[in-house]
């Protein structure tokens, strides 16, 4: 009897303990683990590594602001960062990992088109909303709809009218193009230039090639210079473009340097790599770091104060807006933070993003049209070490 009693009490005690543990577990399930997880696909290598770093900072800052304001409906947001190393195979394995293991509601990134092509397609297959802050190549979301989005408008749509105007106003006649034929993003930039020059009657006198991350541009620039162009079109990532600019000026060449909107997107990296040689570079633009729109101005001023940067780079602002749009979607649809609801939550976020009109963010107003943001068409020029929007050009 006594024995049985003891055994009974022990059993009861154990059961109670188990229950308490289980309760605790559940508690932490809906309390501690109750966060909205957002994935972030960055890359520490490759031609767009510096853009990726800027994107990371913008996304992290967005999450910080959200959480300081009490999260989304009182629930914190957690950023789950993964590094693709600019390797498509790595990207392809990271997306399922984010989806099934980390159970993220949505993904921000990658910053470049080549990365987005892989990541956005993979995420779309797994029905995870993915917002790339910078993918601007035409057709980049071809296999990524309805879950894929990009905040950058393709250069072809956004830059063509601006570049055409620049060519006409400056009366350019002879153009050279330098690009990486093996990289899809820069190849698209080169194609864009070719079509702009073709439609404006500018003669392409020289096309030079390089490999992204290449160290020496001496040979290419010598070839370009020998063709005596009055403009060199930079179909290159911002780091490469900056080093091309330095080689151009160090060879004593004075022709105009021209970039697409992508160059202005990576403007800070371009100027950092190219230094004084980048002064006067003209580019199309879709983002104004000194926007006068009230919502954008307030956010930009705050970000400037917080980051100590005099100018918020494009990828920072786009990543910031990406996070906030996802947060807005979560809030609108009342998405639950528990892991059971994650599949339903993703559908809801996707629907909200697709329906989003005129989101007033750090980068002015954004509206998605078939996943692609419609952006203002601006002209930028490098002045005193940074791209500034030439507002007179409108």
């Amino acid at each position, binding site marked *: 009897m006594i024995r049985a009693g003891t055994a009974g009490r022990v059993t009861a005690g154990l059961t109670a303990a188990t229950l308490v543990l289980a309760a605790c577990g559940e508690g932490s399930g809906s309390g501690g683990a109750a966060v909205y997880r957002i994935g972030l696909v960055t890359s520490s*290598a490759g031609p767009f590594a510096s853009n990726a770093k800027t994107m990371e900072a913008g996304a992290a800052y967005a999450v910080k602001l959200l959480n300081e304001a009490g999260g989304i409906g009182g629930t914190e947001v957690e950023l789950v960062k993964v590094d693709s190393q600019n390797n498509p195979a790595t990207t392809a394995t990271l997306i399922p990992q984010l989806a099934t293991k980390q159970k993220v509601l949505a993904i921000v990134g990658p910053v470049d088109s080549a990365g987005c092509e892989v990541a956005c397609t993979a995420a779309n297959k797994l029905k995870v909303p993915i917002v790339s802050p910078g993918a601007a190549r035409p057709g980049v979301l071809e296999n990524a709809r309805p879950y894929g989005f990009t905040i950058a408008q393709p250069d072809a749509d956004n830059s063509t009218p601006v570049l055409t105007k620049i060519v006409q106003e400056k009366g350019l006649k002879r153009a050279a193009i330098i690009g990486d034929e093996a990289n899809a993003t820069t190849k698209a930039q080169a194609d864009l230039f070719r079509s702009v020059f073709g439609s404006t009657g500018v003669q392409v006198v020289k096309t*030079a090639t390089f490999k992204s991350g290449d160290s020496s541009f001496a*040979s290419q620039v010598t070839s370009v210079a*020998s063709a005596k162009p009055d403009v060199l079109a930079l179909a290159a990532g911002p780091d490469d473009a*900056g080093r091309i600019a330095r080689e151009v000026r*160090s060879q004593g060449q004075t022709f105009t340097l021209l970039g697409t909107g992508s160059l202005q997107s990576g403007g800070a990296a371009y100027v950092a790599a190219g230094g004084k040689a980048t002064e006067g570079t003209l580019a199309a633009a879709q983002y104004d770091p000194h926007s006068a729109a009230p919502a954008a101005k307030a956010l930009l001023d705050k970000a400037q104060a917080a980051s100590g940067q005099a100018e918020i780079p494009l990828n920072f602002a786009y990543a910031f807006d990406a996070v906030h749009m996802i947060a807005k979607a979560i809030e609108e649809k009342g998405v639950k933070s528990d892991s059971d609801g994650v599949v339903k939550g993703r559908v809801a976020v996707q629907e909200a993003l697709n329906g989003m009109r005129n989101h007033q963010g750090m980068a002015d107003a954004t509206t998605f049209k078939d996943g692609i943001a419609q952006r203002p068409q601006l002209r930028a020029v490098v002045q005193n070490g940074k791209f500034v929007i030439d507002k007179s050009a409108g």
Partner: protein
Amino acid sequence: MLAQQLFNGLLLGATFCLVALGFNLVVGAMDRLNFALGETAMVSAVLGALIMTETPVPFPVAFAAATAIGGGVAVAVYYLSFRFVSADFPTASILSSLGCGLVLTAVVTKAFGSHQRSVPDVLSGVRLDLGVLTVSGAQLVILLLATLLTAGLYLFLERTPWGTAIRAVSDDATMAGLLGVPVQRVILLTFALSGVLAGAAGLLTGLAYHSISPFDGFTTTLTALMIIVLGGLGSVTGGVVAALVIGLIQTLTVAYLSATLRDLIVFILVGIVLLVRPQGLFGRNAGVLERV
């Protein structure tokens, strides 16, 4: 334009030459390839560039510092990857030095970031117009320092007791030891010298390219390997000639064909040379493994 392109190629070859010479010094002294030499060049270049941008010291001081850093890193690599690795396992030092290289890259990216680091110009006001070609101040500095270092190394090897000792060890290490040459110290010296050359090459390359990436190390190693294989393992003259040849070919391929074909053409050329002359252009015998 051809003259200018030939000059570009010469300049590229001159920087390649320094790293290739560093490789050959170590190959001669201990029949081993130091696969961390490219990363050694990268570390020196990154730190040299940092010194140039963050401190007011003039370029020669930054350059001297880069060479000293290169020497120091190479000595460290020697102790970590070679000194205590048994001579019976030649592949062990390949792996351990490859590992050292990976660690160097990781340390630099952790400490200073993974971005391309911009290298400031030197003598930016200088420009020599020679009619068919123009030479910038930086190019002048690169050519001058690369030539001085190559000539200096040559004189050191030919005219000094320690230089002669390096060649003696390279000929027959056991015999050199029996004549009183401290073989281990000579090997250490070749590592230090190879590091100095790599450090110089790193910063000069940065100067030529206006930037340096922490991921450049292994590319440097591969290019240098190609050069010493083409020139003949352990041959100083062969290394210099092959470096210039490869520099010229790379430049001319980019200028007249396409950057995408550059490495392919170099590989094909090296392949053909090795089919015809397996010992390389200036090689004295079949190769490193047969010289033990």
